[in-house]
């Protein structure tokens, strides 16, 4: 099988898996006062320090969560609630049109249920945000903005955003800036303090850790109202018995991925460039989506005019090639990607898109397998799409 869907989830690193298994064998609730509890707490706190160290945060700024979606929800809703509680006029959320649904739907929920108004920042044809648009937005509405949330790197088209610039603009207006860095950590350099963001989402399973564990890095001076109430384990912002084994494995994965980032990015980007070039030769009419330079090293995203992405996916899947249309499912049916639409693509082009993402286990053989199968798949998908013409 050629696994070209590392942005969906990537295989666990051996060292993370071993750490997980070793820790999972031990009993102990990190909140307990006895020896077993102390041992678990020590593992958790060491992990917190490891994560903080490689991501440029202080240990007290690391809040362990149940993964990326929870971290995004905690940041968006939690900071919104806390800011509005402190300043009743701050009911506006500024976000981007290309966010992952974990942010997009959380913002939508605030608009639908909490009376939030939303300023959506547009992107250009490459999917890039313009800091000047944020500056204009905050100049117009800055007094009423609760938070700005914009992703570090896009999960579909791989475009990396000018996060430090955006955060600096938000800072000019004293508005906390959250970034969903799920796709970025381990792929591009990420430093929490240096970036100037107030909150940052990271998750384990995109960088070789386990699924179901992640963190929100939350600056010490930023308040967030909890989503989950209970024991108050994490800074009173997040409750729930800590997943010691998951957290230990997560920390090992984050540390490994971040420390190896440069070498990883060079290797994977070279393989990705080769993939793109060979796809271009095999299917010359393809469109390469996203920012050609500022993009995630493992991401290759194409539109294949005249095809439907889901037909291509089916055909490639049958040839043992795993990829993604990148679009979310609504009511069980694939919708055209909001990211592509925001980049100015029409419905047909958005539906003709396919994402291939490389990762730490990718090899040239994966690319070979894709190139061997792709032209025939495109040909067939085109024939199938031609049938769509109404009779």
């Amino acid at each position, binding site marked *: 099988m050629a696994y070209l869907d590392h942005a969906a989830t990537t295989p666990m690193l051996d060292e993370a898996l071993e750490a997980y298994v070793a820790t999972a064998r031990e009993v102990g609730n990190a909140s307990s006062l006895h020896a077993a509890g102390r041992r678990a707490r020590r593992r958790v706190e060491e992990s917190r320090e490891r994560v903080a160290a490689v991501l440029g945060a202080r240990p007290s700024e690391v809040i362990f969560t149940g993964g990326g979606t929870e971290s995004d929800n905690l940041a968006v809703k939690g900071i919104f609630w806390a800011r509005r509680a402190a300043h009743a006029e701050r009911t506006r959320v500024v976000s981007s049109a290309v966010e992952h649904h974990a942010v997009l739907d959380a913002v939508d929920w605030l608009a639908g249920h909490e009376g939030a108004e939303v300023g959506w920042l547009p992107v250009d044809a490459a999917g890039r945000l313009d800091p000047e648009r944020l500056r204009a937005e905050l100049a117009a509405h800055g007094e009423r903005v609760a938070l700005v949330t914009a992703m570090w790197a896009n999960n579909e088209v791989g475009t990396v955003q000018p996060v430090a610039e955006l955060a600096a603009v938000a800072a000019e207006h004293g508005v906390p800036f959250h970034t969903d860095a799920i796709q970025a950590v381990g792929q591009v350099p990420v430093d929490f303090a240096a970036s100037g963001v107030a909150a940052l989402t990271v998750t384990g399973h995109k960088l070789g850790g386990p699924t179901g564990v992640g963190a929100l890095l939350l600056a010490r001076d930023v308040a967030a109202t909890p989503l989950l109430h209970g024991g108050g384990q994490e800074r009173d912002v997040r409750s729930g018995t800590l997943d010691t084994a998951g957290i230990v494995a997560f920390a090992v994965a984050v540390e490994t991925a971040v420390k190896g980032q440069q070498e990883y990015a060079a290797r994977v980007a070279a393989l990705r460039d080769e993939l793109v070039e060979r796809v271009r030769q095999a299917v010359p009419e393809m469109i390469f989506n996203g920012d050609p330079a500022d993009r995630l090293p493992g991401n290759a995203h194409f539109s294949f005019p005249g095809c439907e992405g889901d037909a291509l996916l*089916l055909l490639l*899947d*049958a040839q043992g090639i795993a990829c993604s249309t990148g679009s979310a499912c609504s009511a069980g*049916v694939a919708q055209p990607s909001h990211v592509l639409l925001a980049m100015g693509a029409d419905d047909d082009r958005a539906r003709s898109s396919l994402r291939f993402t490389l990762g730490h286990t990718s090899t040239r053989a994966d690319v070979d397998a894709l190139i061997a199968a792709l032209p025939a798949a495109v040909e*067939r998908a085109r024939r*199938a799409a031609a*049938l769509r013409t*109404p009779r």
Partner: protein
Amino acid sequence: MRVLAAMSGGVDSAVAAARAVEAGHDVTGVHLALARNPQTYRTGARGCCTLEDSRDARRAADVIGIPFYVWDMADRFHEDVVDDFVAEYAAGRTPNPCLRCNEKIKFAAVLDRAVALGFDAVVTGHHARLGPDGLLRRSVDLAKDQSYVLAVLTREQLGRSIFPLGDSTKAEVRAEAARRDLAVADKPDSHDICFIADGDTRGFLAQRLGETPGDVVDALTGAVVGSHTGAYQYTVGQRRGLHLDRPAPDGRPRYVLSITPKTNTVMVGPAEALEVSQVRATRPVWTGCERPTGPVDCEVQLRAHGDVVPATVSLDADGLRAELRRPVRGVAAGQAIVAYRPDPAGDVVLGSATITG
């Protein structure tokens, strides 16, 4: 062969897919999303278009061990089946949407797409037999037989279809599903029209066609005996729900004899006035024999699960004419007439056509 199994989320299509795998085919499962706004959960025994059905289908595909995808056919389904259903009622006819769905969606839009994508055939859980001779026959389970709603298919369509369940009874299919650990083994059968979730066909039509009050007229006396809010709400042979103002002079029940959209009139009369001995039909399709050049003695069925009547069928310039050996009541325009040749190995579908009168 590389085959595409259409999986509704029900027990039949799940077992059909499993049998196709066992027969050595390379099977891919597909659930057709037909509803524009699917409900989350099934209510009662209706429909096959909820997200729960989609999940049931996916779970069955996982158990069987085949790839599974959802194909969005909602727009095609609405144009070719739902809109057609409404238009047919508006024209005073009584459509069969399952038949239309087979003709236009499952064995047309889906089959065409499957063939374009490199599949050789479509597998469904219909209860009908289709052997190597290419002949479509009734299921061994006559109570579940679906050859009537498949009779509209052409030879080309049948040539790319596989119905693995025709030799089994429904009870056998359920038992096999349980044996195969398919969770849908005891899922209730679906009934009625899948896109009318609450089963209220009248309400569904009224919503789309609006209220158009008109007269209910007694065919014998010509007297207006009642009123209605839309002629499209009636079907030939209907007795209940007429709400007549006064009883018929002979005191006997009245039935809908005909619907005339032009004058928005519903004609009613006694049961024997419903009897017809001749049926005319259009758009004939012949799959079980060559296009007949002379009269053909056969059996005909005039609605789903309807009685079977001996008849002589012949073709003329206007289409098909069937002389029934004994009169039949409640023959509605828009339904299919299906001609069968009796056969001990399962009655063979000769052909079908759409009843015009």
